[in-house]
Structures are given as structure tokens and as C-alpha cells.
């Protein structure tokens, strides 16, 4: 996943929000990441730190809320949620691979500005 490109998008969003709110700094960015979203929060923090130097977002903290991915079994119809994308086998059938129904979201929920 292109954490640096995502960090650049976050930075631009933060700049716009800060300008709209007449704020000087962005101190917190809250993200909601689905379990199937393939984004590494650590890499993202690192990228953000690198790009935010000297901007209103410098020193900003990233808070990540992880949400599970909905899954279903194509054989028995069982539906559930998973937080870990490895070894997705249906608990009921014990052998059928689960279909991933969602959990790819990457959303900026809110920002704290001052």
C-alpha cells in the first residue's frame, strides 16, 4: 500500500481543514481502517512524520480505529466478522474458504485542530 501517497493525501486534507477552521495546528487525525484494507498504520505514521515537518500538521498524532471485515461462507451461508485476514476458513464447515464481503474502508473520521 502506498502509505506515503496516503500520507500526502492526509496532509492536504489537514491543510484544507485547518484553513477552513482558521486553525494553526492539526494535533490529531483519527482514521477508521477496515481489517481488509492493507494499510500499515506504522508506515503511515512514519510517512506523515516525514512529510509534515515544517507544516501545521507537524507533531500530529494518528489514532487508528480498526473495524472487522464482514465475511460469509459460500457453502453453508454462515455470516460473521473477522479482524485477522489469515486462514479464513468457515468454523461450521471447517473446510470452506470464507468470502470477504467488505472491510476495505480507509476513512478519515475526524481531526483535532487548534
Amino acid at each position, binding site marked *: 500500500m502506498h502509505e506515503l501517497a496516503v500520507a500526502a493525501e492526509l496532509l492536504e486534507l489537514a491543510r484544507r481543514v485547518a484553513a477552513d477552521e482558521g486553525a494553526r495546528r492539526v494535533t490529531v487525525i483519527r482514521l477508521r481502517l477496515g481489517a481488509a484494507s492493507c494499510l500499515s498504520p506504522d508506515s503511515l505514521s512514519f510517512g506523515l512524520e516525514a512529510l509534515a515537518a515544517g507544516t501545521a500538521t507537524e507533531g500530529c498524532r494518528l489514532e487508528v480505529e480498526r473495524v472487522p471485515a464482514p465475511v460469509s461462507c459460500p457453502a453453508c451461508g454462515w455470516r460473521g466478522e473477522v479482524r485477522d485476514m489469515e486462514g479464513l476458513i468457515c468454523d461450521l464447515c471447517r473446510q470452506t474458504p470464507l468470502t470477504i464481503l467488505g472491510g476495505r474502508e480507509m476513512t*478519515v473520521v475526524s481531526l483535532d485542530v*487548534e
Partner: protein
Amino acid sequence: MHQVHVEHRLREAADEAGGANRAHFRARRVYVVNLMSAPGAGKTRLLERTLERSAGRWRAAVIEGDIQGRADADRIARLGVPVAQINTHGACHLDPRQVAAAAAELDLDGLDILFIENVGNLVCPAEFDLGETDRVMLLSVAEGHDKPAKYPLMFSTADLLLVNKVDLLAATDFDLDEARRAVLALNPHAEMLEISCRDGRGLEDWLAWLEDRLVHARDHWEGREHSHGE
């Protein structure tokens, strides 16, 4: 200090561009394949073989994606097939906006199939919706049957997996059953074909798959019932 709620979807601009491409291709009734693989798995050779065998059957065009150079576009051009080359100058994947610009260089009127040959890479291309109808992934036997488990996003979003270079099976430890199991575990709907662009085996099955998908797409766009399988 105050909190500002935004609910901003990341990658929204790129997703929208992919959606816009899809609508554009659909409006022109062009069936689009996003062809992906690791470098050297045989994408360009597959396109050459496909275009040679389907000449006169479909009107096709190609968008080539590479970091730099025109080597692949030149190979396609030699076959008399319209081709546009995207150079990413360092980016490791194709972006839907680049595809839109390249498609504008081609005449889509009367085109049956547009092949997009993505940059050779098992990681990043899978993350970008180019607006394609189907995703075809190429895995050569020299790469190993463990790749699906190691690159889940790429293999889980492929509609068809072509296992290429099966003429080399005896020289490798590639286990076809293991590869099939690993791919189906990620994507129960994926289909798999074994091919060799060198000796030609499996290529007619690949063309039959394309033909079926092309007809299916057209039926879907025209609101017709499709009788094969779905």
C-alpha cells in the same frame, strides 16, 4: 482545540477516476482486461500470442504500462494493433487517470477488447481500479506456487489466473494443485487455466474464456440474460 468531523474516504479521487473509466468503456461497449503479473511472467508475450490468434475475430487495442521506454508498445505495434504507451517514470503501478489519458489516444469506436498491460508488480497494481471489466493475473511456474498466499490482494481480486510457462514444469517444483488450493482459498470464484505461450498449450482455452467474458459483458450492458454459468 476542537474536533472536526470529515468522514473523508481516502483514495476517493482515484476510485472515482476508476469508476469514470468504467462508465466510459461501458458506454462505448469496450470489454477491458487489466493484465497483471510479476515482471517477466509473460504478459507481453501473452498479448502477442492472443492478438495473433484472434486477428480478424475481434478488434483490439492495447494500453502498455511501463516505468519507462516503449519496448512493449513497439512489440504490439508490429502486429498492427493500435497501442498507447504509459510511462510512469518510477511509479510501480498504473493509475486510473493515466489510463484515461492513454485511452483518449486510441479510437474506441468499434473496438471489441482493450487490453491494459499493467506494470510488472505483484503488490501495488491490485490496489487501483482502472475501470476494467475483468482482471487477469499471470503467474509463471518459475515463480513458485506459494505466491498466492504471499500476495493475497493481487490473487484475491483476479477473475482469472493464468499459470504460464507450463512447458517448464518439469524443471521447477511448482505444484499446480497447491497453487489452485491457495488461490481458491483467497477467491472461491477465481478460475485458473494452465498455458504456455511458448508451445501454445492452453491458449485456445484462454481465447474461449475471453470470448465468453466478452459476450457476457455485452449481454449485461444490453440488459440481456446470459446463458453460460452465471
